[in-house]
């Protein structure tokens, strides 16, 4: 329901701003995320490029959880994967996420649900450096749902993320 409402809200927002379909504001700072593939909203040819400010402008969300890679409980802040999917009008059935070191995982689009994974850009309120698994990290609410404490999910929790390709 909520998701539908968001959808509607997004549509209303888009119709209110008489932007061309698939148009996104251009990044002003360093681009930290590039989304390509089956997307309808772009800002650079066939791709959508985001700087931190653009991501922070999107509806944000927090997850407080422990991870198997860090010590203690961390507060993650970022954009829900579903919000990104809605924002970019991502179609297709999976996302191919790639890290700075070219490590790549495939995330089924079905994972992008409300309360599901998000693209975190802050940990404990701090922007994440590359040394600290930044700048972006796909985090699932591991503590909130035992379904997210599996090896597959752990493998999808890609850090040092910098590219996403929506694959049909």
């Amino acid at each position, binding site marked *: 329901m909520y998701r539908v409402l968001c959808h509607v809200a997004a549509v209303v927002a888009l119709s209110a701003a008489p932007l061309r379909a698939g148009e996104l504001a251009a990044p002003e700072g360093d681009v930290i995320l590039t989304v390509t593939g089956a997307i309808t909203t772009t800002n650079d040819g066939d791709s959508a490029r985001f700087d931190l400010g653009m991501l922070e402008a999107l509806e944000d969300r927090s997850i407080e959880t422990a991870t*198997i*890679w860090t010590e203690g409980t961390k507060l993650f802040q970022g954009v829900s994967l579903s919000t990104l999917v809605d924002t970019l009008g991502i179609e297709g059935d999976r996302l191919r996420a790639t890290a700075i070191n070219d*490590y790549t995982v495939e995330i089924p689009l079905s994972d992008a649900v409300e309360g599901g994974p998000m693209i975190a850009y802050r940990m404990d309120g701090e922007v994440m*450096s*590359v*040394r600290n*698994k930044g700048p972006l990290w796909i985090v699932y609410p591991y503590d909130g749902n035992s379904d997210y404490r599996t090896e597959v999910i752990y*493998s999808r929790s890609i850090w*040092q993320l910098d590219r996403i390709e929506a694959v049909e």
Partner: protein
Amino acid sequence: MFTLKTPPLRTRLLAWFLLSVLGLAVVAFMSVTVAKDLRLLNSASSDNVQWTLSQAEVEFLEYELHLARAIQDPAPHLRDLRREFDIFYSRVATLRESSIYETLRRQEDFSTNLDKIHAFLLGTVPAIDGSDADLIEGLPHLFEQARDIRSTVRRLSISGLTHFAAESDQRRTKIAVTLMQMAAVVSILLLALLLLALYLNRLNIQNIRRRSQVVEANKRMKIVTGTALDAVVVSDATGRVLDFNAAAEQIFGYTTEEAIGRDLADLIVPDHFRAAHEAGLKRMRESGEKRVVGKGRVKLEAKRADGQLFPVELAIQSAQTDDGERFIAFLRDISHLVKAEAELVAARDRALAGEKAKTDFLATMSHEIRTPLNGLLGNLSLLRETRLSPKQARYIKNMDTSGKLLMGHISDVLDITKYDAGKLRLRPVEMNISTLLQDIIDNQSGAASANDTTLQWGWVDAPLTWIRADRDRIQHILMNLIGNAVKFTHGGSVRVTAQVDRDAPEGPQLLVTVRDTGIGIDADQIDRIFDDFMTGDSSYDRDVGGTGLGLGIAKRFVTALGGTIEVDSEKGTGSTFRIRLPVEPIAAPAQAAGHETGGEAGRPKHVLLVEDNEINRVLAREMLTAAGHRVTEAPNGRVAVDLAEQQHFDVILMDISMPVLDGRGATREIRAGTGPSAQSPIIAVTANAMAEEKQAFLSDGMTDILTKPLTREGLLKAVSDQAAPAPAETEAVADLVDRATLDEMRDTLGAEAQTALLGRFVTEVDRTLSELSDADPQDLTETAAQAHKTAGSAGVMGAAKLRAALVAVENAAKRADHAGTKTAIKALPAIWAATLPILQVQGDRDDS
């Protein structure tokens, strides 16, 4: 041979169930363990971890590569170099922080290398984070450092891999063990299941066998109920018929198909029992109270299909089944039984009525015969007192003998009738058994000597003289036994012995044995000799006569007295009769004990004699007037009432059954009236006085009761008893009369014969006295003869003083003593006057 006691099926199944649950739980637990292990095994964690480890090396090499390139490149891509460093740094940070590597970090080898690498990173960070110029400057140095640390990174990677390989081995072994365990448990479970299957199979076989047994039993039951002669009807608690056997079909007229499912009440319960039946069912349902069920057979009525009612014998049993309570009724058609029973009852009633009629007839006839016979004998005795020719006197004697014999027979029949009707009453008195025996022996000695037989008696051991018992009955018994012995013994001996058994548990017993050497009794008759109308040898009967009732009566009397009688006999050798009687020993009564005879007996009284039978009336009148009483006669109750209204009578003798007004009515009227005789004693005279009737007479106002036939003693006593109490017998009286002799005579002859004899005696004495006083004083021989003859009579009659006086006359006359004779004769009238009243009332001590 014994069997193990097996627990109940339910317990066994429960045990199996629990065991199975336990097995399944173990299997489930192990499955979870295995699944977990498998998941661990399956998960990418170790691969991932190993990949991460190798990735650390790869990323280090990338950094080193970029470093080498940067040294050679005049314009190095510092950004890329920094990124590669950061990536490696991040990787190492992950290895240091991540929980995944916690076990790995505990490996000394791994942690040492990790610490070295971390130290290297921390040493490198200032250069990397410094300005580009400083970085370029320091590149060769960084490269050197990196080259130095390369082997450490390699060792880190390898030590991790070695560790994970060992861990993986361990895990596999653990899983293998778990799998083995699970296989074992599953095997056990399978075995258990197999056993359970075998057990269930056995149960099933058992069930099949039991079922066939039940079917068989059911079949047998069907055969039993089907062939039963009683109707068997099974119903449930609401009265619905569930089973109806062949006999029920036949008895009630419904087929089984018709009956089953229908209500018992509609089917066989008669309409007038319907309410009770339903109330009973309701009561049973509500309170469980059962009134007919299980209480044995009851008799009820049932209804057939055609509505006919018939009697049944019914027994109901109940049984608890799984479907609720069942009632099984067994019914038997007892129509024919009831009918037969009714017929039997009717037959019995008829027989009883017939028997009673016979007894009544016998009793009545005996009375009816006795009354006129008594009149006949009484008149005979009166006739004898008239002047008779010797021939007439002989005829009269013969008539008297025959009449008395007849009277004896009638008395016998009456005794039997009374006994059989249960009306024989004992009259215990004080008696001297020795005297009684002696009297009987004396009485029979004449007959014995006529048969040339010796007759003796005696006591064995100590004698018992005085007892309290029914003297008349004992006398009758002994007279009969001794008389028989004498009668049937010719030229032999009869021995009578008496003995007292004082130690018998039931009290003192008198045993009398009568042993003769007579003709004996046939062995085939000995069992019947106490039967009525049983006589011995028929050829002998003519000699000895008899009704054949004697022993029957003797046995009845012995039984009535509570004793026994038995006999031993051998044909031709003799018989022995033994009687055994319970007795009550008493002290000898004082010699001076008073007699009830009234001294006033001689005082004349005015008697009103009410009697419709003329002969009886005349006889009674003669008896009374002979005793000096004045008599007024009335032929019926009406006349008597009128007379009693007009004048005073000292005594009224009232017959009961009379025409016009019977005795009871007359008595009530006299008592109700105010005439001068209203309070006079009234004596009922009845032929058939039963105890209850006597009570009625007394309540009518009668004073006493006299039973017909009247005896002189009874009559006179009854009349004199209504006077003042009798004074004690005086010494003079004892001198005048020898009471023992009188008793003996009465016992021998009976009171009536004695009365007759007394009449004759009175006549004789009167005549003798008048003849003696008128006689020629010179003819002393005639006087002596006259005195002798009358003295003999006086001796027999017990007039002791008169006898002594007459003997004195005789002796004086024989001595030819004229003066003495005259004196003696003069004394006679006074003695006679004193003696006569005593003789007249003598013998009334016993109820006659």
